[in-house]
């Protein structure tokens, strides 16, 4: 297809919104500047800072003052947020969410590489607002697992008045469901694993060939210009490893086919996004390949050979995935309860600091956006959540959620949502 003007404009607009940061508040005023005084600043990557101050400007963390003087006052133009006695924690990163806009699955075809959730997003929907009250500031909004390849998901912030404010990146990731839901009935291809694996491999291979053809053309290695195919366009970034494929896969044998086909054969950047049942027994192989695992929504397995519970995230960690995180598969578990999933992972054996890192920095790195989000460090997005105490403790709650430097949820001004 020809690159018409409208297409070019669209791409330019996307690029702009991708690169730009929201520079204005809802009412058009300049972005506010904040001085958040702790309390305990949990940076995640560089330890905790007691009594420090976070300075926020232009939607980003400007700097952290570790030990402010006793007579310290917020600088000119910076509004003080007093969070003494509280915990200041980075916003959480959810890598398996279905609540940003509905219409999860379109199941006519079993592979749909042209689908994208970008256009479905409903900013300011109630479910996202409740997610904010659970300290979740970033979500990967992906299609469901009703088909083997549901489409491309969108990485968004959970707050923002419109898509441009919310968008972090599209495509966020490709969504593949290896099995355990996309099985077709009614005599269609893809009724069992052998068929589903074929559908996945065939589609990916098609995309790989398309990418190679376009790469060759753009590097002037061939005179034959390939045909533009909107259905396959987004595979190019996938095979260039600009974004990963997140895979709904669980159980030992299914995950084995995931790592073999998607990582070993296709060379893709893979994130395992369930990893439940006895999948953890494959941990050494997964760790060897540097594949991130976000375990959930199931957090345990009843082992009927031993007659007891197994904590899944804990077993993944023991097996070698030291960066293991959790997800909610919202709304299977309500989005705001992402931290509760982490708390359950801790109860069932995972170390607390690992659990917290798993839904912040490691989740961010899994999507390649660790330079922007996932910890409280200078230069990163001001996605900051103030808690009454340790977020893992169900007895504590969020008092304030800030996304991109703007307050999205403030219990001093509105009722508690969670």
């Amino acid at each position, binding site marked *: 297809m020809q690159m018409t003007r409208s297409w070019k404009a669209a791409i330019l607009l996307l690029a702009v919104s991708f690169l730009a940061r929201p520079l204005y508040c809802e009412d058009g005023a300049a972005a506010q500047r904040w001085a958040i005084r702790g309390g305990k600043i949990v940076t995640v990557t560089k330890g905790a800072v007691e009594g420090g101050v976070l300075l926020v400007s232009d939607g980003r963390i400007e700097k952290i003052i570790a030990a402010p003087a006793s007579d310290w006052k917020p600088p000119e133009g910076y509004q003080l947020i007093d969070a003494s006695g509280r915990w200041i924690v980075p916003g959480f990163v959810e890598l398996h969410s279905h609540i940003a806009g509905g219409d999860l699955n379109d199941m006519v075809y079993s592979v749909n590489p042209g689908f994208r959730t970008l256009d479905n997003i409903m900013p300011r*929907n109630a479910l996202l607002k409740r997610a904010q009250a659970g300290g979740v500031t970033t979500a990967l909004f992906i299609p469901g697992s009703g088909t083997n390849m549901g489409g491309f998901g969108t990485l968004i912030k959970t707050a923002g008045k419109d898509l441009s404010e919310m968008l972090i990146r599209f495509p966020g990731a490709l969504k593949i469901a290896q099995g355990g839901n996309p099985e077709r009935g009614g005599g269609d291809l893809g009724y069992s694993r052998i068929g589903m694996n074929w559908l996945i491999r065939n589609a990916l291979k098609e995309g790989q060939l398309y990418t190679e053809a376009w790469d060759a053309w753009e590097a002037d290695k061939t005179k034959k210009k390939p045909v533009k195919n909107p259905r396959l366009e987004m595979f190019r970034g996938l095979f260039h490893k600009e974004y990963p494929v997140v895979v709904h896969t669980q159980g030992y044998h299914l995950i084995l086919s995931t790592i073999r086909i998607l990582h070993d054969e296709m060379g893709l950047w893979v994130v395992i996004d369930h990893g*439940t049942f006895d999948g953890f027994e494959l941990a050494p192989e997964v760790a060897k390949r540097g594949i991130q695992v976000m375990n959930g929504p*199931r*957090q345990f397995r009843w082992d009927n050979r031993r007659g007891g519970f197994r904590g899944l995230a*804990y077993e993944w960690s023991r097996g070698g995935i030291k960066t293991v995180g959790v997800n909610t598969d919202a709304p299977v578990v309500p989005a705001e309860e992402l931290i509760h999933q982490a708390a359950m992972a801790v109860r069932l054996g995972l170390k607390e600091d690992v659990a917290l890192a798993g839904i912040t920095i490691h989740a961010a790195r899994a999507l390649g956006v660790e330079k922007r989000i996932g910890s409280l460090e200078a230069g990163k997005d001001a996605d900051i959540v103030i808690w009454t105490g340790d977020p893992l403790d*169900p007895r504590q*709650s969020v008092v304030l959620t800030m996304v991109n430097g703007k307050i999205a949820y403030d219990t001093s001004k509105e*009722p*508690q949502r969670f």
Partner: protein
Amino acid sequence: MTIRTRDYGMPALLLPLVLAAFFCASLGAEETREKEKKSIVQAVVGATVLPVSGPMVRRGTVIWKDGKILEVAAELAAPEGARVHDADGLYVCPGFVSIVAMGVGIETSSGNIGNGLNPWDRELTIALANGITTVQALPAPFFGGFGQDGPLYGGSNSAVIKLTQGDLGGMLVKEPAMNYFSLPTRQLELNYFLLRERFKQAKAYLAKRAEARAKKATAPKLSSSLKLYVAVLENTRPTVFSPANNHEVKIVLSLSREYGFDAVLNEPKDAWMMAADLAAANVPVLVKSRGPDFDFNTTGPLFEKGQMAPVRRPAAFVRAGCQVSILPYRRGISLAGLAGRDLATLHIDAAFAVRGGMSNEDALKAITLNPARTLRVDDRLGSLEKGKDADLLILSGHPLDYRSFVLKAFINGKLYYDREKSRIYREIPLTGDK
């Protein structure tokens, strides 16, 4: 083709002796067990004790004998000859009481629950391992799993049971526990008319029956359609209603006022608005501390104006003076894999109530003494007080701490769960070990 003649040689001679020895040993063991059944004094010392009926006791001791608590005090030495459980650095609190539980401890519920209990039930064992020592047991719904939610069925069997794993004796506390009444959902004008008619008829029946008893004549026949109404009016136990909205709450209050029976409200979601009325009418409430999952509705609710987030509701009822029992997120034990969403994490649901503004003390009471009071068994259980049943837990941390595990669970003074010996959490390290 050889016969092992060895097999029939020496062992054949030794066998009678060996058997005799075993028999004597088993008799001897029997005697020891007999002795054990007689007065054993046990004590737990050095713990942070949360009696629920009173303030926290540091370095506390709880002493019990023959299944009843003798003493709860600080820095008290265990009596001579007592079996002592050292609980230095640990917590002790009453066993948790789940105001409802489905499919726990019941083998069959045809006819009644008491004759169909199963003390070897797996779900019972898991609930006990999570600190639940008493439940109001309801039969499991025909379709399990998510079917455990929703209103409680009118006319349902119910029994208060203790989770005495492996022991049928001591398991049944009371049957029936409460009456269950379903309010009409369709053809409301007609059905409410019928409802009121039946209450009138039931009242008339009770008057006739009282008359017959006074005359020592035979009691009048009771038609099956009036059975539940008569049970409600007899008021030997409270009646549970599951009102869908505040209008139905008002109906329940007016019926209970008019006919003078005790009502209990199950999941009266927005009735926090009328909590003061409920408190004044002494109507206990059973409340969940979190909202539903699988909610795809992007349009709400948002709890902004005139609504209250589910997590805040239990505290709102308590503030108004209502007696609140925390409901488990789901009524049964689920082994599907979603953690913290079923009966096993009742104490976590209590912790969520603290998130919503309740105090730790009230939250613990909402899963111990309050459900015991609602079930009218608080003379026996729900707190650690002299004379009450020795149903207690030794925990690795505060009962509302999400990392705490039950280390030992005692019911009627007997040790029924020991984390070290049980397989259930053998693969899960305690917090300190991680």
